[in-house]
């Protein structure tokens, strides 16, 4: 039960942050990406601001084996830059630029995004359902010449 309550609190902070920072406004996200248009630097402040508490949390996490609630801490990150990371990020970047939405804001804006947001969400969830099949294909080694 404590895990659910704290997950809700963490999600609430995340949702509140996405909301007040303007990151659920697609014009602000596309404005950051549009270097040849009316460039909007807000996203850099959001990302920078978010990394401050997060970096401190990682410093604390390094000294601990388990979380406050006794669950194990995440393992050390992989350093492998494989084609899944690159290809997936290319696809994500294209979609992010096209609509100005990434997964977090698409949930945060659910109460005021209207029909357009629900169409985006339905397509995103479909993509997430298909992804494991594409991942499995990409896991296969590249055939030699």
């Amino acid at each position, binding site marked *: 039960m404590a*895990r*659910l309550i704290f*997950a*809700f609190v*963490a999600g*609430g*902070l*995340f*949702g*509140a*942050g*996405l909301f*007040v920072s*303007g990151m659920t406004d*697609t014009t602000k996200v*596309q404005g950051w*990406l549009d*270097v*040849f*248009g009316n460039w909007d*630097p807000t996203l*850099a*402040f959001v*990302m920078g*601001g978010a*990394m*401050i*508490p*997060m*970096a401190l*949390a*990682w410093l604390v996490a390094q000294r601990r084996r*388990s979380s*406050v609630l006794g669950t194990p801490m995440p393992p050390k*990150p992989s*350093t492998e*830059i494989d084609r899944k990371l690159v*290809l997936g*990020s*290319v*696809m*994500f*970047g*294209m*979609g992010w630029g096209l*609509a100005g*939405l*990434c*997964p977090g804001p698409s949930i945060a804006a659910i109460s*005021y995004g209207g029909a357009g947001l629900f*169409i985006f*969400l339905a*397509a*995103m*969830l479909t*993509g*997430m359902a298909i*992804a*494991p099949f*594409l991942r499995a294909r990409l896991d296969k080694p590249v055939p030699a010449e």
Partner: protein
Amino acid sequence: MEMDWIWGLVGGLLIGSGGAAYLLVNGRIMGASGIIGGLIDGSAGNTKWERLAFLVGVALLPVVLTPIYREVNTHITDNIAVLVAAGLLVGLGTRIANGCTSGHGVCGMSRLSLRGFAATAVYIVTGGVGVVLFRHLLGVI
């Protein structure tokens, strides 16, 4: 408009505090695409309810804050083809790359993860190319 960067910074600190709490209290990485995707493809296992509780928080706090906030508008496009294509690309891409702006960006880069920096560089550059291509060259967004 001139105050936008302050709101950005305040919002960013809130986002990072959420990520810090999720890591230190629950022992989990706050990556939105992973939290949602795990529920969709069935890989969530016994973390299903924890993920749902997180997402309820994400969706609910804006509802609570809406009456006291200056402007609430996503300005989302009404072009259905663009919405479907973008949604599919975001869903597929984030799950293939195993992370999005929150997982690879906020959580990954703040622990100096090489994969976090690489993914973020790729999706920001591609996103920029996408906006320039679809807005300035093709005029569809």
